């Protein structure tokens, strides 16, 4: 199993505030790895630090052995990493179609038709809204669009930041099912950030727990699900 993403002892700051403390994690080819943690633990910061937004102050980020820590953001994307980011960030004054086209621009629209078909089969709602401005979509539809846009480039590594946010339970199930089948059928490697720890850990091969910017636990999905601390903190009582 070859290493796709290796994060080595990174620390990230927002001004004087340290958001990540000495975080190290690995994602291997064909794996689904999840990062769980409470609100404000630094999960999204980690996802954006991979893209150099903000840059890690210390440590290194390797993608397939190449040090990408200091690369410009767009160059990191051109390596084959795609992200459905926190807050969805669809382009509000572009149509659904144009948003999906933006997702495919990095690979110069290679396999555009087949990727589009796959995304629209996954999210039929996007087909209904194809010509509509993304800013007028509901939150859940925007979430679908953000994930679909990330898939359009046929990424080798997909970063999903809370894909379940704002979606109905049925759609969440559908998205998690889609991630699983993409992973099985195409070997897509996924790093998944979730507050929805139960489903994420069931889906993932391995997981990490982030608390106040530092990793506190790691293990397979099943191992983490069985831990009493995890059950108490993330699975029972509200979540």
């Amino acid at each position, binding site marked *: 199993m070859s290493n796709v993403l290796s994060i080595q002892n990174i620390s990230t700051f927002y001004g004087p505030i340290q958001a990540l403390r000495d975080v190290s994690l690995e994602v291997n080819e064909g794996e689904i790895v999840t990062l769980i943690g409470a609100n404000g633990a630094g999960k999204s910061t980690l996802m954006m630090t991979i*893209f150099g*937004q903000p840059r890690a102050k210390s440590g290194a980020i390797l993608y397939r052995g190449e040090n990408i820590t200091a690369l*410009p*953001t*767009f160059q990191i*994307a*051109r390596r084959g990493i*795609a*992200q459905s*980011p926190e807050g969805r*960030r669809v*382009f*509000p*004054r*572009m149509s659904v179609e*144009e948003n999906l*086209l*933006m*997702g495919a*621009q*990095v690979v110069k629209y290679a396999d555009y038709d087949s990727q589009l078909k796959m995304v629209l089969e996954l999210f039929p709602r996007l087909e209904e809204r194809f010509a509509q401005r993304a*800013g*007028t*979509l*509901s*939150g859940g539809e*925007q979430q679908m669009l953000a994930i679909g*846009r990330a898939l359009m*480039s046929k990424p080798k590594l997909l970063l999903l930041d809370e894909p379940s946010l704002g979606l109905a339970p049925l759609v969440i199930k559908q998205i998690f099912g889609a991630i699983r089948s993409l992973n099985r059928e195409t070997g897509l490697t996924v790093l998944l950030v979730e507050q929805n720890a139960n489903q994420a850990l069931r889906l993932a091969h391995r997981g990490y727990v982030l608390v106040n910017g530092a990793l506190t636990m790691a293990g397979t999905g099943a191992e983490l699900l069985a831990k009493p601390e995890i059950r108490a903190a993330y699975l029972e009582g509200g979540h």
Partner: protein
Amino acid sequence: MAYALQQLVNGLTLGMIYGLIAVGYTMVYGIIGMINFAHGDVFMIGAFIGIIVITALSGITAVPLGLLAALIISAALCGLYGFSIERVAYRPLRGSFRLAPLISAIGMSILLENYVQTSQGALERAIPNLIPGGITLMRQDGFAVQLTWMQIAIMAVTLVVLAVFTYIVTKTPLGRAMRAVEQDAKMAALLGIDTNRTISTTFIIGSALAAMAGVMFLLYYGVIDFYIGFNAGIKAFTAAVLGGIGSLPGAVLGGLLIGLIEAFWSGYATVAYKDAAVYSILAIVLMFMPSGLLGRHEVEKV
């Protein structure tokens, strides 16, 4: 009636030139959120390159060919000016406090004016009317409504340029990248868009449009000096604000309206106060529509 029609023709011609310049203001504002005060001076340089090319080619090539060459060469060189201005004066200040690039832009504007003043002289430069004649649209009470070939040429060129420009912005990957950077630069970078390059391209295109407007201004009025960029720039900026800054159709609409206001005010009231009329109407419109005629006020869902 005939007199009004004549003002309409004059106003539309002038308005198209303003519209072309205004597009550059609004594009730059959309993508990096600053007013490029040097934009009017790029227009002025475009007019000067036009006069140099036309003078050099006069007698050598046919007039239409010479004019086409003037448009193309001026657009290309001014594209280079726009690119350089952004690199030298604005990019180093990106991420700085908001006023910094604005001050830098004013400095760049003064620099360009003085550069042209010293290299081309402070006197007015003139060319003869290269496309004389026209057609008479109607006659009424001894007043003939003239549509000159020059006006037709200016409108035709502007419409073609705007059509090509609209196609680029709405249909091509480059145009989508420009709009993506405008709407969310960080997300565009996350999708592999080189935002710096996209911003450079925006400056190149905006400056090329201003250059063509400059050449047409030269042809229409026949007289230019190093200071024309100031007035035309302010007018075009007003057009961009009137139409709704950030909106491309708004910039063209604003340009046309300002051209028309100027023409009708000059025709029916007094030429001396035509600028006052323009700015008064801007003030009135902004009082009731603070984001301009076609500006955004859509609520984005969170």
